């Protein structure tokens, strides 16, 4: 009993693992055609998870399982954001998946396992547990992409995702093994000490670092390792893309923090130079390629590449405030992505995918409210005040100007000006064009409510962003083991 009570930072993970197994079995035994019981159980699990994490939140970092696992303020905050994101994904996608016959027990259990993987990634303080978390998440996501078995594009997307994901994992592992060879340990803190103490062979360490950065870039979808992103976004069912594009980005943020910042802070000069190139290229290629897309999922894929570029700017500033800004950016980005893909699922109905730009034509005439919500989301993605996306960009820019990279700030804003064009095009389609069909939009009440909350949250966080900025900055400050 005594041992169990020391495990409290990991209670959420343990509970989730148990519940995922329980729900897997319950789904088989309980007769429910529309999977209502499973769905409610999953949502309840997420609620309990939220309360657990909130109740057992850490003020100081607590290490567990021989330093494999850490509970700190940053991990608690990121986990809570992830629960919310996953819960939103399920609300948005329920009817979309139901009419396509994809709302199965497997889908929900895989979602929970993916969440478990993210949580492990977020809380990992050892290369081994990081890798295990990453694989739990990735394998669940590969399977989810392939869930639509009879669709050729989904299968193709799954294959691409799997093969490139496996390659990235390989690169990451190879880099970690280099670091192990150089430092003799896999523990984040010990690696940091070894590098700082100068005992490690610096050539070997930098060599390992290159592979780790490449692996990370693959997972994040940063240029030049971005090729899979558009294909997967376009091919996979919209509901799954919403999952891939939102919560895992939060986990990826933690991953970047633990790997690059906590364990390799002394090598910041090396990795920030690599990130700088990737950031600028991602923003350039993401924003420019997005212009010519006619499929909105593909457009949002390129937009995600551009956003990742902006996010990397925050990381490479190399200050605690910069990491806080990057976290704020990624949280806001997840919120906007959920809204944008949520809108696509709302406009889709049986036998119709609203994934072409034309499906947004004249939305203002069909439903002024939905059009207004999408307007907020698009202006937020473009970074126009008074929406949350502006402050996300602003806080990152503030940090890179402060650290003396004014030229990168100018490049970033010029590239986001290009980005503004394709977000504006959606607004143009919704407000200036005539609709292709005047069919009324039917959507479940809870998704309608959620999209309203989502859009208004983007506006509200644009008017009062201070608390979330401060919170992100504080949790990062309290959590990172910076010597």
């Amino acid at each position, binding site marked *: 009993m005594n041992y169990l009570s020391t495990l409290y930072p990991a209670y959420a993970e343990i509970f989730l693992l148990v519940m995922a197994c329980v729900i897997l079995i319950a789904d088989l035994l309980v007769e429910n055609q529309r999977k209502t019981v499973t769905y409610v159980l999953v949502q309840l699990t997420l609620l309990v998870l939220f309360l657990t994490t909130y109740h057992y939140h850490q003020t100081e970092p607590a290490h567990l399982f021989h330093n494999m696992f850490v509970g700190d303020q940053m991990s608690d905050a990121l986990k809570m954001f992830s629960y919310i994101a996953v819960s939103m994904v399920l609300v948005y996608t329920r009817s979309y998946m139901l009419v396509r016959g994809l709302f199965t027990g497997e889908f929900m259990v895989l979602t929970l396992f993916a969440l478990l993987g993210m949580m492990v990634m977020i809380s990992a303080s050892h290369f081994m547990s990081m890798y295990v978390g990453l694989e739990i998440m990735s394998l669940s996501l590969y399977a989810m992409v392939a869930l639509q078995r009879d669709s050729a594009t989904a299968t193709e997307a799954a294959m691409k995702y799997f093969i490139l994901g496996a390659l990235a994992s390989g690169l990451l592992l190879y880099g970690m093994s280099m670091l192990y060879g150089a430092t003799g340990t896999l523990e984040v803190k010990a690696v940091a000490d070894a590098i700082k103490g100068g005992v490690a062979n610096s050539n070997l360490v930098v060599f390992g670092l290159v592979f780790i950065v490449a692996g990370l870039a693959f997972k994040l979808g940063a240029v030049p390792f971005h090729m899979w992103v558009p294909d997967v976004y376009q091919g996979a069912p919209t509901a799954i893309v919403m999952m891939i594009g939102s919560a895992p980005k939060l986990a990826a943020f933690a991953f970047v923090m633990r790997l690059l910042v906590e364990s390799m802070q002394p090598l910041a000069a090396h990795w920030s130079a690599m990130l700088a190139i990737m950031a600028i290229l991602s923003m350039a290629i993401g924003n420019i390629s997005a212009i010519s897309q006619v499929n909105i999922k593909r457009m949002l894929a390129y937009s995600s590449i551009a956003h990742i570029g902006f996010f990397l700017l925050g990381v490479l500033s190399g200050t605690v405030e910069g990491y806080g800004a990057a976290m704020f950016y990624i949280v806001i980005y997840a919120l906007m992505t959920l809204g944008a893909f949520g809108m696509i699922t709302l406009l889709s109905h049986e036998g119709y995918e609203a994934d072409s730009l034309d499906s947004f034509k004249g939305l*203002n005439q069909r439903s*002024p409210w939905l059009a207004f919500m999408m*307007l907020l989301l698009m*202006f937020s993605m473009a970074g*126009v*005040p*008074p929406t949350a996306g*502006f*402050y996300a960009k*602003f*806080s990152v*820019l*503030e940090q890179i*100007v*402060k650290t003396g990279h*004014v030229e990168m*700030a*100018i490049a970033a*804003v*010029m590239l*986001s*000006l290009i980005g*503004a*064009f394709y977000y*504006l*095009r959606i*607004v*143009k389609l919704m*407000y*200036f064009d005539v609709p292709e069909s005047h069919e009324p939009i039917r959507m479940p009440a809870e998704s309608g409510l959620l999209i309203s909350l989502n859009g208004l949250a983007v506006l509200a966080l644009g008017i*009062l*962003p*201070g608390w979330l*900025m*401060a919170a992100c*900055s504080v949790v990062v400050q309290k959590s990172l083991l910076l010597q």
Partner: protein
Amino acid sequence: MIFGLPILSVAIWLPILFGVLVMATGNDRNAPLARVLALVGGILGFLVTLPLYTGFDKLSSGMQFVENVEWIPHFHINYSLGVDGISVLFILLNSFFTPLVILAGWQVIEKRVSQYMAAFLIMSGIVNGVFAALDAMLFYVFWEAMLIPMFLIIGVWGGPNRVYAAVKFFLYTLLGSLLMLIAFIYLYNQSGNSFSILAYHALPIPRFEQILIFIAFFMAFAVKVPMFPVHTWLPDAHVEAPTGGSVVLAAIMLKVGAYGFLRFSMPIAPDASHELSGVMIALSLVAVVYIGLVALMQADMKKLVAYSSISHMGFVTLGFFIFNAYGIEGALLQMISHGFVSGALFLGIGVLYDRVHSRQIADYGGVAHKMPVFAAFFVMFAMANSGLPGTSGFVGEFLVILGAVKANFWYAFLAATTLIFGAAYTLWMVKRVFFGAIANEHVEQLQDVSMREKVILLILALCVLGMGLYPLPFSEIMHTSVNDLINHVSSSKIPAMVMPAAAIN
């Protein structure tokens, strides 16, 4: 504070609140309600700004009606408002135009009425925010937010090529303002984490940085003014925008850019302003002369007035960068007068367009025979546009020329050509549209202005004449602030070399 109300906040948020209410009336079945509600909102919005004039202390150069609330403490951003003699008149001008614009679109706008009216009300509040903001980030938020309603106004209710014009308008303006954002962030870091505009005014900045900051601000403000050579979005936007949109663009939005020069560029980077004043004056004179000639060649009435606006705004920037009280006061008066006159001209063109659905000068002729009352009004506004003494257009131009003579005779000489060109293009248009024989059956069927149109035009005519005959109420309110600005700008802000402590001892 009248009745304990924070007037500036009310001036910003009351129209926005009414805008949201109007939007909530929903689809076009409730259009009459939307119209009435919008008009009430517009008039109330104007009435609440009146205490800004009556309660204004003309002898103080400091900020008045100040409000300051912490907004985003993480970045030391405050919700900080205040007006001085430079900004107060623009808030009044903006609030004054809102009900007129709503009236102008009363019958003409038939589709999505509530959204149209709401967009103008929300924009009115946001523009008041731009003029009242004393915090750079607050300013920036209002500045950018202004784009969204204007983008929709042009794109939804505009002419055939509206999408091109709307996107061009948006991207052009966004380009400039993003660089301004970088400048703000730089200043934030230099000033020890402050976004207060007044703190920036006092902040010493080295020469090279001042020039960069000046250029960043220039990109933002020159696009909005618009100055030559970044003016090309304006004719497009004006031609495609609905009448109300053109009025707000010409009367209000162009002033925002010029205001930015006075509030940001000149006081924050005074040395750079002096150093680059030659370029600014050259660009202004190119606008005055060259764009004046371009206006002469236009076949489209709206385009003609649009180019005339650019030319007049060239006068304004010329007035700023000759750095004397005549110049700056003249420029400010010219801005207000241009607000009245160009607003009135666009409304007049709107009156014709609503009847004939053409803006081509060639489609008209002899309108005065059929619309004598309207012709009288329009000719008067045309006279004001060409700067006839006794109208508001004369006051500002005269003062700017007077200031320019003090600076350099040739500036004044070139600037004065505007009196000729302005008269040429405006009166030639009037001649072709209003006089001569009745050109075609469309003109034959014209009805004279309705009561609603007459009221709008009469109000503007009174403003134009009133300001032309007795400009003192306008100039006295800005006097102290302008002098203060000139004193501030004339002292260098380049930090002196810091002596090592040992050397002092």
